[in-house]
């Protein structure tokens, strides 16, 4: 029905033609008739416009008005460039940080996995409460029992990790991390190949042909996505296997492996230990829920099955703790380590947003007070409350829009940084990309901020309030503007107590939230400094460590031991080398890889109610303690002959003090208990030949724990090389590699580092944490300082007259300085108190949802408070100085 423009023109032309014709018929001459008709018609363009407006939607008018307001806002903001820039940058920081972190949160915690029907995919874990074993994994007999007894889970995928020496695929022999899986694994996981095929039921069992698939990342990065690899024959340690396929990109869990092989590829998996020993637990278990079964049913069923296992095989479980089974959705399981850190990050970003908003609110409020004259004029000229509010809204939309735009631009690189950071906690973060989430979050936050900010300033009250709708009156009441305000058209600014109070509240809010962030960050920094500077008692700079792993997992024996002692012998003759030793464990880097077990001692009965002591086992060669700088307290070090014939051990001080308080440890006998000990022949008596000082190779701050050292020679296993040098330890690396390759050409020599390097590497997540939170706290501090300075500067400039009067009646300038300074300090003090109280309450609430919430110690809190006080004082200094330098005459004349 809506007419076209030509149609309108034709209608008007028709009107004129009829009118002219009538006039001519009445006897007018054509020229004057035409003129008269046009005159009678009036303004043709105007008429056409008002007709067109009839057909326009009412939103069109609103949009037009908004456009006008936006243009006006842009012009008026261009006159206040400094303010606009501060507001935009502050908002951009707040919005950018939130958008980036939310993208990562969404990518890691909320996005579904690529696996088929991923919500039916569960991860099953066996754990013991009350011991360190929160992930015991499963042994093969246990898996078989579970498989035969559950119905709520239709299929089980088994996954265990071993290292293989991979020969024949890459240029060099290399140790690769491999997953070993059963035939149903890929079916359970719901994954597809991108090339070739995956492992299936035909690849299962000891009779199948050895086969492996590559994970996508390994194939794409190390093999450059070469499609020719399918069908290649490679060597995995002693086994020869066929490469059958490449797995699609997927989240690797529980470990990121480079290849995945079938059971027959790994000699260890075929051994009797693996197949029959109930406590040889190294298998991770995945399950697919049976159709119609819920995860709760699976949980209940598995709990019952587990209880049965504990009843039937009590010897396989510790009596000190209750064993339990947990069933979690794989997606949740993968996300869980990152969950805490991501929520904390999101909270920190939220705090930054609040600080940014209060700061911006402050600036806007101060600006609107300066503008009261202008607003009053506009109100007097007939602008209603709605129109004024719309002007303010347009201004804050321009500001927040610009802030959001800059924030989203900022968020792009931030997403990458945050994702790399979060990848330390959840491998899924690596797949996070910048997507529309960033835009949506940015836009949402900008709109929230814009609406908030438009309602911060108070409008001049109108005498004729009839046009004000009830909600506007409500808003005014909310904003605390009671009665006709005392604004004037004069050039001076008057601040009502209400405005002043609001300014101070916003500044205090900023201080409070900054304090929370600062306290958190200083806690992390304090922890980091403590760890980084802790005296480990070891030779941190002159000892070079190397990973020289045995060429296949599970290979032990005299030949291995012989290789390590031969390597030590040859390396010791190199110039610059002071001493060489081998062992099982690089301090900190290999933490948690060696077992702990119970030790029985001849002639020692535990006190009532106590058990035999648990001790950590380490395997070391001769000279190990001398190389690392651990003092020998009693007895002797291992010699090259130890390990054949009589079994000997060295214990550490903690062990000796616990079991032999009288100091008579030497020549006493101990043996390991448990099924694993039996397997390795460790249940025979070992004579103690020495006592060494405690060294802690798991924590940087030493926490003494009982430890027993076995010899490399007897265990037939080492894997780590320790070389102490006189000069530059870095110059040695190629030489060491060459010497070892002379003995064994296929031998990998990897991850060379000094102990100090190891500490730096191991602490890098902590360092990154401290860095990220310090950055947040730094931003918050910066914004808060700007906020406090802004409030005081505004307050001082508005009170020039007051200061003039004070000076005139005899106040000393330094009194005024102290007065303004103290105002700043009071804001800081109230903010810090509120922040401390709020932060404490927040931690209490958070502790209900997140485990391991730590409250910062006294020192970091004091430090944060001191920094804030200092910052507030510095921020107040400039306005205070200005107050004390007020020119009396000018101030008194100014109004």
């Amino acid at each position, binding site marked *: *029905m809506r*007419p076209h423009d030509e*149609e309108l023109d*034709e*209608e*008007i032309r*028709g*009107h004129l*033609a*009829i*009118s002219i*014709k*009538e006039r001519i018929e009445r006897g007018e001459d054509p020229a004057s008739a035409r003129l008269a008709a046009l005159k*009678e*018609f*009036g*303004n043709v363009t*105007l*008429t056409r416009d*008002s*007709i067109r*407006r*009839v*057909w326009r939607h009412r939103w069109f*008018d609103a949009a037009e008005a908004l456009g006008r307001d936006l243009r006006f806002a842009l012009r008026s903001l261009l006159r206040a460039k400094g303010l606009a820039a501060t507001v935009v940058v502050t908002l951009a920081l707040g919005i950018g940080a939130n958008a980036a972190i939310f993208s990562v949160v969404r990518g890691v915690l909320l996005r579904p996995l690529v696996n088929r029907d991923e919500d039916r995919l569960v991860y099953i874990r066996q754990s013991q409460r009350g011991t360190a074993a929160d992930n015991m994994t499963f042994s093969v007999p246990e898996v078989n029992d579970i498989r035969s007894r559950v119905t709520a889970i239709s299929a089980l995928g088994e996954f265990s990790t071993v290292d293989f020496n991979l020969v024949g695929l890459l240029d060099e022999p290399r140790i690769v991390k491999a997953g070993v899986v059963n035939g149903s694994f890929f079916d359970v996981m719901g994954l597809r190949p991108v090339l070739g095929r995956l492992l299936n039921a035909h690849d299962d069992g000891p009779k199948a042909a050895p086969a492996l698939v590559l994970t996508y990342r390994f194939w794409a990065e190390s093999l450059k996505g070469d499609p020719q690899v399918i069908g290649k024959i490679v060597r995995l340690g002693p086994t020869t296997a066929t490469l059958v396929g490449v797995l699609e990109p997927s989240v690797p869990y529980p470990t990121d492996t480079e290849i995945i092989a079938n059971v027959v590829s790994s000699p260890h998996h075929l051994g009797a230990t693996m197949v029959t020993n109930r406590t040889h637990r190294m298998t991770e278990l995945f399950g697919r829920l049976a159709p119609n079964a819920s995860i709760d049913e699976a949980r209940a069923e598995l709990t019952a099955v587990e209880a049965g296992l504990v009843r039937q095989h009590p010897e396989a479980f510790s009596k000190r703790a209750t064993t339990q089974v947990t069933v979690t959705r794989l997606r949740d399981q993968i996300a869980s380590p990152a969950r805490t850190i991501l929520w904390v990050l999101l909270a920190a970003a939220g705090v930054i947003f609040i600080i940014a908003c209060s700061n911006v609110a402050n600036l806007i409020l101060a600006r609107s007070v300066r503008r009261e004259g202008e607003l009053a004029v506009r109100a007097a000229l007939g602008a209603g409350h709605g129109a004024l509010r719309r002007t303010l809204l347009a201004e804050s939309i321009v500001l927040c829009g610009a802030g959001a735009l800059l924030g989203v631009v900022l968020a792009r690189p931030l997403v990458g940084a945050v994702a790399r950071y979060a990848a330390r906690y959840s491998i899924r973060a690596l797949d996070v990309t910048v997507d529309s989430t960033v835009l949506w979050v940015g836009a949402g936050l900008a709109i929230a901020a814009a609406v908030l900010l438009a309602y911060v300033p108070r409008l001049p009250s109108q005498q004729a309030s009839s046009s004000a709708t009830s909600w506007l009156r409500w808003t005014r009441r909310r904003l605390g503007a009671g009665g006709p305000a005392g604004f004037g058209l004069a050039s001076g600014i008057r601040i009502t107590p209400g405005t002043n109070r609001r300014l101070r509240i916003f500044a205090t809010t900023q201080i409070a939230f900054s304090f929370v962030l600062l306290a958190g960050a200083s806690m992390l920094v304090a922890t980091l400094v403590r760890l980084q500077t802790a005296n480990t008692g070891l030779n941190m700079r002159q000892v070079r460590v190397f990973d020289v792993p045995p060429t296949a997992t599970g290979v032990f024996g005299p030949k291995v031991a012989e290789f390590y002692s031969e390597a030590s012998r040859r390396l010791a003759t190199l110039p610059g080398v002071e001493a060489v030793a081998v062992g099982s464990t690089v301090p900190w880097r290999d933490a948690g890889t060696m077992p702990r077990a119970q030790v029985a001692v001849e002639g020692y009965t535990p006190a009532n109610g106590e058990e035999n002591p648990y001790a950590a086992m380490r395997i070391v060669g001769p000279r190990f303690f001398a190389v690392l700088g651990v003092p020998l307290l009693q007895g002797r070090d291992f010699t090259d002959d130890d390990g054949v014939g009589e079994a000997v051990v060295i214990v550490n001080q903690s062990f000796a003090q616990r079991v032999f308080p009288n100091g008579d440890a030497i020549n006493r006998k101990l043996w390991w208990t448990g099924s694993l000990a039996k397997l390795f022949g460790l249940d025979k008596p070992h004579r103690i030949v020495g006592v060494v000082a405690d060294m802690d190779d798991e924590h940087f701050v030493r926490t003494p724990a009982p430890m027993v050292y076995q010899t490399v020679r007897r265990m037939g296993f080492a894997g780590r090389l320790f070389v102490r040098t006189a000069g530059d330890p870095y110059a040695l690396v190629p030489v060491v590699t060459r010497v070892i390759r002379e003995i064994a050409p296929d031998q990998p020599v990897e991850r060379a580092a000094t102990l100090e390097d190891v500490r730096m590497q191991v602490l890098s997540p902590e360092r990154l944490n401290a860095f990220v939170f310090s950055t947040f706290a730094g931003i918050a501090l910066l914004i808060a300082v700007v906020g406090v300075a802004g409030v005081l500067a505004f307050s001082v400039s508005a009170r020039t007259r007051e200061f003039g009067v004070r000076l005139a009646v005899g106040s000393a300038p330094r009194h005024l300085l102290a007065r303004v300074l103290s105002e700043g300090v009071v804001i800081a003090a109230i903010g810090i108190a509120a922040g401390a109280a709020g932060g404490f309450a927040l931690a209490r609430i958070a502790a209900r949802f997140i485990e391991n919430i730590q409250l910062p110690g006294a020192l970091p809190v004091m430090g944060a408070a001191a920094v804030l006080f200092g910052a507030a004082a510095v921020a107040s200094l400039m306005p205070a100085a200005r107050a004390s330098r007020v020119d009396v005459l000018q101030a008194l004349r100014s109004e």
Partner: protein
Amino acid sequence: MAKHADQERLELLQGTLDMLILRTLLWGPQHGHGIGQAIRVQSDDLLKVETGSLYPALHRLVKRGWLKWEWDLSEANQRAKYYRLTPAGKVQLLREQDRWSQLVDAIGRVMNPAPANKE
């Protein structure tokens, strides 16, 4: 838009133009010029409708569904847009006429109060 139009229509009582248009079209379809002329003639030249108000009013009535238009040749052999009352328009006319007479009646009572003693 309302403000602007209000001032132009001062000659006419607010809200009455729509009613006059509807009433005029009760005689049959007519084009814009004809409607304006008819109102002038009917009111003995007392009411003069500005085209700037007439055409927006016509289009507004079409938009509300009270009028329809069709193109036809005028007596001057000129293609013109003829407006016609719809059934809904007729109902609306009755409603407005009703309101109008109530209004005239009410204003009349205020302006010429009947003497209290009149029987």
